[in-house]
């Protein structure tokens, strides 16, 4: 986990270590800033020295230092930098700029343009073939000298190994300072052991920061489907799920993507039918070729980063409440998802489909900030939404059913505009909307959606189509069809 060196980074580092990170990088503001805007170069972050000392002391104080490796980066160049970083608590050191310079980088700061004249940071074949001069030996040579200088410094302070050096703040001395103000800087907090007993470990003592959650359900799913994935034969499995099972489906998705690519198993999907209450991140990074059917409800982050496939969630048959009035999935679903389908027969929490760039989703209600920063895909909400709909939305489009005529006040007017679906010239969208709802009914048997389709003429006048102002009404559907994620 990479953390920006800034005030309070120690607390964040402790949280990250508790969440079973194996390695924490404290990243300072110096060094590699090749493609960042000057405002970031000038005003973001603080030196790694401050953040590293803070993180090291906090981790030790909270009995976590022995569980996690601590790295630092941000303009490390020489062996002396390495030694100082080790003294302040790092056992691993990140180098970016200098090895790049060793292979020929001239610090042009145009890495983001793909036209690096030295051929270091470009995909352009001509520049790479004809103008790149770097070799592995150059980098090796650079690091050999860094290592050598590190050894010299360690020898001069009488330390034999890195293990002994980490956290030895007593080896640093405060200089007088070249000006009166400089001399008055109080650096003691950086150089203290924060009152933590010396027997607390200074370095990582374990190979792997094992999580408490063993992901039993994911393991079981992979066992069941392993053969079907390898043979690309598809299959269907019944399982129960509880809210202790998090990130369900991630491991099988990984197996599918590894064997057949993200969308390689679309035509022969493996299908898992769950009953119960899903924990966080149900269907996270779902690959094309994995279909998750859940009867019950799910927590936050359903379908986060999903790439393809299908997630269908509906309420248990035994309940009697109306699906369009009840929440079925939590907050921030479909965060950054790139493709696939999500049907959830119920309402979603806040920030539904934030950063969605390709998923087609149908739900029956949403909280605030629905479709925030959306750049692609289609969201259909068959019910009420919260405020700030479509903030920062620059792509894709949405249908929203507005029963009490409040949507005009709820959507964010900055980047999106809304149209009625009912008028004559919108015939194409009307049919499209109907087909979207039909697909939803097929998967979920939603009573509310069935009611809408049966009385389509009564409801069509209450639908809005939400689209980015920059997109033309005529091209939306074609664009959707040309990219049928």
């Amino acid at each position, binding site marked *: 986990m990479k953390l920006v060196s800034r005030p309070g980074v120690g607390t964040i580092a402790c949280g990250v270590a508790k969440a079973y990170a194996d390695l924490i990088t404290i990243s300072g503001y110096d060094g590699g800033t090749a493609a960042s805007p000057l405002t970031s170069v000038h005003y973001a972050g603080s030196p790694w020295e401050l953040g590293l000392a803070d993180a090291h002391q906090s981790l030790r104080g909270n009995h976590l230092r022995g569980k996690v490796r601590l790295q630092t980066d941000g303009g490390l160049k020489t062996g002396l930098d390495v030694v100082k970083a080790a003294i302040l608590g790092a056992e691993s050191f990140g180098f970016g700029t200098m090895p790049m310079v060793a292979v020929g980088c001239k610090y042009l700061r145009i890495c983001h343009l793909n036209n690096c004249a030295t051929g270091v940071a470009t995909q352009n074949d001509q520049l790479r073939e*004809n103008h790149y001069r770097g070799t592995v030996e150059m980098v090796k040579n650079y690091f050999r000298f860094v290592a050598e200088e590190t050894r010299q410094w360690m020898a001069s302070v009488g330390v034999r190994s890195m293990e002994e050096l980490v956290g030895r703040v007593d080896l640093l001395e405060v200089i007088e300072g070249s000006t009166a103000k400089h001399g008055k800087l109080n650096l003691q907090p950086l150089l203290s052991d924060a009152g933590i007993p010396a027997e607390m470990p200074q370095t990582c003592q374990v190979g792997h920061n094992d999580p408490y959650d063993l992901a039993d359900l994911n393991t079981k799913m992979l066992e069941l489907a392993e053969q079907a994935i390898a043979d690309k034969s598809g299959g269907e499995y019944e399982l129960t799920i509880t809210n202790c099972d998090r990130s369900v489906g991630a491991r099988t998705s990984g197996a599918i993507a590894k064997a057949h690519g993200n969308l390689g198993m679309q035509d022969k999907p493996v299908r898992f039918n769950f009953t119960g209450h899903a924990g966080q991140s149900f269907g996270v990074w779902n690959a094309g070729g994995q279909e998750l059917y859940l009867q019950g409800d799910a927590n936050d982050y359903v379908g986060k980063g999903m790439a393809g496939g299908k997630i269908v969630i509906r309420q248990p048959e035994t309940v009697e409440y109306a699906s369009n009035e009840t929440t079925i999935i939590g907050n921030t679903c479909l965060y950054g998802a790139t493709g696939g389908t999500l049907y959830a027969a119920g309402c979603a929490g806040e920030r539904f489909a934030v950063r969605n760039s390709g998923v087609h989703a149908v739900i029956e209600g949403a909280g605030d900030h629905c479709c925030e920063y959306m750049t692609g895909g289609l969201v259909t909400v068959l019910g009420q939404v919260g405020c700030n709909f479509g903030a920062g939305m620059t792509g894709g489009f949405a249908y929203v059913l507005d029963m009490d005529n409040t949507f005009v006040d709820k959507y964010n007017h900055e980047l999106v505009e809304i149209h009625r679906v009912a008028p004559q010239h919108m015939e194409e969208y009307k049919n499209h909307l109907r087909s979207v709802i039909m697909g939803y009914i097929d998967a979920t048997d939603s009573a509310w959606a069935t009611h809408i389709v049966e009385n389509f003429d009564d409801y069509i006048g209450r639908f809005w189509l939400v689209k980015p102002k920059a997109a033309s009404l005529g091209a939306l559907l074609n664009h959707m069809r040309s990219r049928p994620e």
Partner: protein
Amino acid sequence: MSERLNNDFQFVEVDRKGPVKIAAAVRKQQFAEIYEPFQQKQASEQAHRCLECGNPYCEWKCPVHNYIPNWLKLVSEGNIIKAAELSHQTNSLPEVCGRVCPQDRLCEGACTLNDEFGAVTIGSVEKHITDTAFAMGWRPDMSKVPETYKR
């Protein structure tokens, strides 16, 4: 104005090409320019070859630290007046420097592209900026300059 140039690979696709040199036989007869002036289109094309390096080596090498990448960009966009204003911020006689500076040892020598692609024709563009701006009727703004009675 023609379409604004926007090609990140201009330095690969367009070679360094200075203005045409006037034949020695002609020059022997007169005391005048060595090179023909740049045309607007050619100046823009050549100026657009600049990579706009984050640490402009040309600017650093220039004894008066001219804002070279910045006015090259203005020229490539066809904004001669702005370029002339900028050029005069660091240098009171840029049209002279454009002609007599040893660019091959200074800005053009330090140019990132000098090693393998051919440096940007900084000198010729510098000359082009002020000459064109003068021809367009532009004059340096002297209103803020205090009189020293020393000329």
